[in-house]
């Protein structure tokens, strides 16, 4: 069943447009990854989905009903864990219990708070009476997550939940969030750069670039300056002197997108003339990640200042003998480059 339907949303801070989404739906009990560079609008989208802000234009439907901040349809159902969670100036117990207290839901409060703390790996006997100021970054993040898990939300929005925490905290946060989905059918929307979240856990990934959703997967954004090249095409000189060629954009569009589904990895040894050829770029493999289906591998290739992430079949990795550090070529069709 469709849980969210975001329709024709344009959001502005002052006169600056930060988000423009035509149409996107999110099903119930899904785990959705949200990826994009800093300033691409991930946090803003999460705030809109958390009904903390009203979109400047457009509508967000929750279970088919148009909803906004403080609505009774969503107030107790959707919760957001911000990237830098705020802990109130009280004890850990009081921080975790806050949500239930404002709901006047005090039944078995102590044991429920302790259960939520255990869920995120915080021993109540050592942490419950500790003050907010006596916690590490990872512990604070887990307290904030416990405060939300205690509410058994229908939707849990996580903004970079593991960005600033140690490995152990990251593992506990991930485990606790997944348990919420498995036990209560909580829908998770996670803004993250963590490949483990994105390619092992998420059912699908939304890629935000410049406040717009890129539907072709993990597109690679290429920013200007651009020069005029041959036959009306534009050229972007990369830091290492290689040249990327793209068609002229429509008016108002400034960012070129390399769609990874249209890129092809080739071995350099088989294409000695590949370098400097139009429609080809050289780079090297930086990362290989086997996706949860066990069949496809996300392959990150660094080309000068750009990083493209291409999904390939597992057999292809073996065939091309790919490994981190290996030099490879990328082939693209200049006409197929899109603009945002």
């Amino acid at each position: 069943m469709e849980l969210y339907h975001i329709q024709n949303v344009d959001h502005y801070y002052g006169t600056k447009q930060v988000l423009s989404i035509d149409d996107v739906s999110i099903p119930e009990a899904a785990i959705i990854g949200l990826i994009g560079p800093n300033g691409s609008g991930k946090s803003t989208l999460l705030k809109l989905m958390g009904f903390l802000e009203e979109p400047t234009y457009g509508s967000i439907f929750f279970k088919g009903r148009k909803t906004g901040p403080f609505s009774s349809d969503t107030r107790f159902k959707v919760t957001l864990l911000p990237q830098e969670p705020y802990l109130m100036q009280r004890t850990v117990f009081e921080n975790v219990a806050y949500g239930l207290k404002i709901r006047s839901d005090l039944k078995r409060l102590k044991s429920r708070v302790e259960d939520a703390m255990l869920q995120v790996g915080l021993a109540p006997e050592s942490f419950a009476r500790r003050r907010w100021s006596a916690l590490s970054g990872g512990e604070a993040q887990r307290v904030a997550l416990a405060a939300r898990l205690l509410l058994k939300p229908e939707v849990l929005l996580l903004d970079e939940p593991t960005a600033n925490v140690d490995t152990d905290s990251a593992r506990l946060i991930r485990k606790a969030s997944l348990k919420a989905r498995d036990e209560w059918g909580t829908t998770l929307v996670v803004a993250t750069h963590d490949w483990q979240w994105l390619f092992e856990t998420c059912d699908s990934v939304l890629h935000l670039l410049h406040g717009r959703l890129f539907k072709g997967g993990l597109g690679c954004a290429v920013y200007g300056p651009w020069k005029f090249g041959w036959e009306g095409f534009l050229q972007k000189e990369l830091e290492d002197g290689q040249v990327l060629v793209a068609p002229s954009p429509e008016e108002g569009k400034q960012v070129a997108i390399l769609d990874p589904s249209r890129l092809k990895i080739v071995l350099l040894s088989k294409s000695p003339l590949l370098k400097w050829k139009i429609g080809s770029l050289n780079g090297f493999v930086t990362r290989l990640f086997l996706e949860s289906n066990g069949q496809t591998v996300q392959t990150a290739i660094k080309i000068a200042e750009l990083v493209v992430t291409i999904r390939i079949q597992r057999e292809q990795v073996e065939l091309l003998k790919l490994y981190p550090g290996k030099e490879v070529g990328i082939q693209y069709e200049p006409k197929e480059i899109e603009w945002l």
Partner: protein
Amino acid sequence: MDFIQEGFAQAYALLVRLDPATYSAIGTTLRASSLAMAASLLLGIPLGYVLGYFDFLLKKQVRIIVDTLLSLPTVFIGLVIYALLTRHGPLGEAGLLFTIPGIAIGQAILSLPIVIALTATAVEASDRNLHITLMSLGANRKQIAVSTLWEVRLGILAAAVTATGRVLTEVGISLMVGGNIKWHTRTITTAIALETSKGEFGMGIALGLVLLLIALTVNISLAGLRRRI
């Protein structure tokens, strides 16, 4: 310099011997300032929250006016309140002129901008993630206001301390609205003014020290409160 030593000795004597006139002035001072502080905190904290939390049309202009009112001269407030409360004034029928509530009204007007401005500053300076956290945990508007004010409680306490200091030590309002009537509306500050005009410097210093002692007691109590919250 002898009168300073004399002042200390007299202050001690006035307090230890339970001098009725001194204790009457202390009582009047405390009654008027308590009433004034209660009124200014009750009004000022919510208004400060509104000013610090919300964005609205002419907010900057309102802020400038509030900040300007921080410099209100006490004699001017005294004059305005006198004009309002005098028998022929618009509020003359209330019979508040030369009464402790009359003084308290003037002192509340004096302390209100302090409470509003400092509360607004404390709310403005609060972490931007506080609002997101409270909302995302399901708080409604009223719960957000209460929780935000509780989070900035030290700032509000500072506002209360500053305003109390101003109210306790003002003389213009007490003199003009209270009339400095012995046993009725004579406060410590008006008594000091009177004693000094009579050339009784020692007595003036003694009363000043008493006032300082009261301020010290109030601040020690608030410091204790700050540690506990």
